């Protein structure tokens, strides 16, 4: 399926997935003892990637979390979230979109989780604005917890696909 934002269906599903990621990133399930929070945004990033492909995952993941960071007061993290969650969504979709069987879904969330943890660590360690390697290292366990919660995205994808069988047709051109 070619990704074309001039297709109204593709544009609509990309925008709605972005809004869902944005909204659920702002739903804080628990505040971690360090500087972050556990949120539900990653679950929808995986859902968008598995159901609609890597490009929707990239945009919804990157833009959704970046916008949530900006309006939540974590604006300095927005560029990092944009890149890390965007990449997470893209790679997860690239792995599991075409054949969303249990093995590929699991691989998608594992690789996506690794991108999340290593991406935030690398970004925070290398870019001075985030506090350097010391702060980056202290964040790793909490990003790992976040990656663990995100992994529920595979379960949610399966549940939504069962509850809404038209799921994977939403970004396809109408059949005439």
């Amino acid at each position, binding site marked *: 399926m070619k990704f074309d*934002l*001039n297709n*109204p269906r593709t544009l609509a599903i990309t925008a709605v997935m972005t809004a*869902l990621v944005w909204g659920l990133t702002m739903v804080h399930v*628990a505040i971690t003892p360090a500087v972050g929070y556990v949120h539900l945004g990653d679950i929808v990033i995986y859902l968008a990637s598995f159901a609609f492909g890597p490009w929707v995952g990239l945009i919804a993941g990157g833009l959704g979390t970046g916008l949530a960071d900006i309006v939540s*007061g974590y604006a300095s993290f*927005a560029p990092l979230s944009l890149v890390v969650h965007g990449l997470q969504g893209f790679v997860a979709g690239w792995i599991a979109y075409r054949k969303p069987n249990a093995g590929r879904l699991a691989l998608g969330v594992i690789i996506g989780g690794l991108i999340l943890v290593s991406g935030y660590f690398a970004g925070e360690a290398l*870019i001075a604005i985030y*506090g350097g390697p010391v702060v980056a290292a202290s964040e790793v366990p909490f990003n790992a917890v976040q990656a663990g919660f995100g992994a529920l995205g595979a379960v949610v994808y399966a*549940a939504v696909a069962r509850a809404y069988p038209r799921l994977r047709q939403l970004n396809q051109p109408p059949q005439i």
Partner: protein
Amino acid sequence: MTQTGVFTLNTVESGWLYRLDPRVKLIFAFCWLILCIVMSNVAGLAVLLLSTQVILLTGGLPLKKIGETWKTLAFLILIILIVQPLFSPGSGPVMFQVGTIQISQSGVLLGLSYGLRIAAAAFTALVPVLTTPADRLVLAFQKFGMPYPWAMIFVLAIHALGTIRRLYTTITEAQQTRGWDTSKGNVIKRVKATFPTLIALIVASLRLSDSLSLGLAARGFGIASNASAPRRRTILHDIHMQPVDWYVAAIIVLAFAASIILIVH
């Protein structure tokens, strides 16, 4: 949320900052964020942070909103101020020592600079976001060369967020009447309790996407990009740079250039 029920990001709807061309605010955000990254001097970062506070306060952003942002940032900054001097003591004179733990002046200054940098960057990003209606912000992005569909994603996402919020409220209220409660138990129990609501919210949002795509198709979205019949998109309420916008843009660029020269030397 405005009185019309349409979700918007901007909380400021009057004043000089609201009237300023959104392109100028984007230039400001870009320049100040670059300065936040390249500047390491505590005094310089404090001036950057102070400038954002002055701009937001004189621009009409409510004190409550500034306070909320500070509240979010406070925890983050506190952790940095504690962790940085402890684990990265630096080579400067030791301020005090407890056992093997040393707190040096350079470690404290480093932590302070990281804290100031994060706060300055956060408030800088809020300047265009909280003082500009989404449609004008999108026009500014378009004027800087962003393709129209990308700008549309931004606008549609903002509108969809408002609808999703209302859906979430409706679904949670319906669940609460059936005894649903996520405030009790450990994190796992709370996440598990959130699942039925989450699935219902996602399915309702997918239906929203379906009707949204129909609306877009009905209004001819995508026709302008059709290679066989290209059309030029028209704009009803365009944005125009006024003389004052040019002056402010010039001041921002000059201040940015002067800061870069000071940093280099």
